[in-house]
């Protein structure tokens, strides 16, 4: 069989448009999943047992069942609650719920990696919970969670292809439609694979950039903070600038 990539070229605009939907689906659900995950991670580390158990149960349920099942379930179960969901909203809900479960665990690991003594030190100067989270826990936790968080983001991005099963016309479903009408499966799938690779490579790049940005000891104080805290006339600034 001869390969003919001219077909892929013809359908590239269609596939790129579908890629936009894939990107949108990945970004939106990852964002929602991260927001919920952050709140849940705080709940998971709370001193209230009921809250810890509720969040634990959520994670147990949604991490313990396939995303594919969540997709079908939300799509088909919604009418039971008196609403009919289009495929896209159903996919957004299902994938956000699943993403929240993973992100809860990832963010929790970061929060718990911050030594308790540092939180006590912040309490001892009179800082309150919100400020401690923002100024002491989050900056350190963020750095710790970047590698697992980004790994999960990458796998989540690929998982958006599962939304094809409930007819969301993202990249995977669009590719299938293109090759079933052109019979050029290998060419179209190759192009789709390349597009996924570009997307995940961007995320890998983002991860490297974030890791570098947040490695505080290696970078030392930023120039802005030096100016703010040490003053322009400080000798050590002049020496090291």
């Amino acid at each position, binding site marked *: 069989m001869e390969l003919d990539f001219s077909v892929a070229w013809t359908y590239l605009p269609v596939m790129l448009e579908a890629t936009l939907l894939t990107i949108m689906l990945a970004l939106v659900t990852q964002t929602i999943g991260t927001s919920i995950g952050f709140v849940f991670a705080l709940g998971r580390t709370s001193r209230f047992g009921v809250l810890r158990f509720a969040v634990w149960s959520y994670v147990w349920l949604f991490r313990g069942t396939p995303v594919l099942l969540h997709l079908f379930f939300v799509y088909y179960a919604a009418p039971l609650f008196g609403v009919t969901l289009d495929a896209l909203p159903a996919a957004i809900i299902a994938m956000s719920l699943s993403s929240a479960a993973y992100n809860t665990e990832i963010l929790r690991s970061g929060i718990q990696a911050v*030594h308790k*003594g*540092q939180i*006590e*030190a*912040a*309490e*001892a*100067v*009179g*800082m*309150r*919970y919100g*400020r401690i989270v923002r*100024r*002491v826990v989050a*900056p*350190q936790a963020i*750095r710790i969670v970047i590698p697992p968080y980004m790994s999960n983001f990458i796998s989540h991005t690929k998982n958006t292809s599962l939304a094809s099963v409930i007819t969301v016309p993202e990249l995977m479903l669009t590719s299938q439609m293109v090759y079933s009408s052109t019979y050029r499966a290998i060419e179209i799938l190759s192009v789709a694979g390349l597009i996924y690779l570009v997307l995940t490579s961007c995320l890998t790049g983002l991860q490297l950039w974030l890791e570098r940005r947040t490695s*505080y*000891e290696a970078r*030392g*104080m930023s120039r802005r*903070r*030096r100016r*703010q*805290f*040490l*003053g322009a006339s*400080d000798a*050590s*600034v002049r020496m*090291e600038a």
Partner: protein
Amino acid sequence: MTQAESPMIEARDIRKTFGTFQALKGVSLTVGRGEVVCLIGPSGSGKSTLLRCINHLETPDSGVVRVDGQPVGSVENNGRTTRMSARQVAQMRSQIGMVFQMFNLWPHISAIENVALGLTEVKGMSVPQAAKIAREQMERVGLAAKCDAFPEHLSGGQRQRVAIARALAMEPKVMLFDEPTSALDPELVGEVLQVMESVAADGMTMIVATHEMGFARKVADKVVFMDDGNDVEAGAPDQIFDNPKSDRLQRFLNKVLA
């Protein structure tokens, strides 16, 4: 009683149990204004727990803590005790400096930012204001040249001096030191004790849990010997070290001074 007459720190009949372990079995302690009290005693005797109950890092099971006449943690009202809100506890803590055995500096920010953070976050100061005070405090502990260093790049003694500067920057009414030199290499102990001595000389009210008997004898106005969750014996340094009354204190001193 007016504030001026009241003792700076007053802890009455503090009890604290962790699981089945009774860490404090009803300890009372009064510290006058500008007084330095050293808590001595074997590990596990309750020194740390007492300090942590004073700034409410631990909630005592029972007992009353007052700093500068104001209750910490819980308020008694017509015989009923109600717990303070998180806001009130935080407000009280900002007036009580605490220095920890393991320093507990925040590793993600430079030394001077460690000192300034409480000022911007708790006192609501602007960064330039806070930075100015932080620089002064870093100078006070002899670390003006290390303002931009991250905790990881400081020696243990330097870290503890930053931690002292961090507590002092808040202009606390009292300072609590929880075994501040116990985690240090022997050659670094002196620099930290020196800073503490100068803080005491400036008139700060201090409670110091310590194993440094030399420091206790030299700097303390009063020494309290704790053992097994009780305050066994208290008195002036001379009396405690030269004329111990209880068997337990005599045995303890024989061990540590041998």
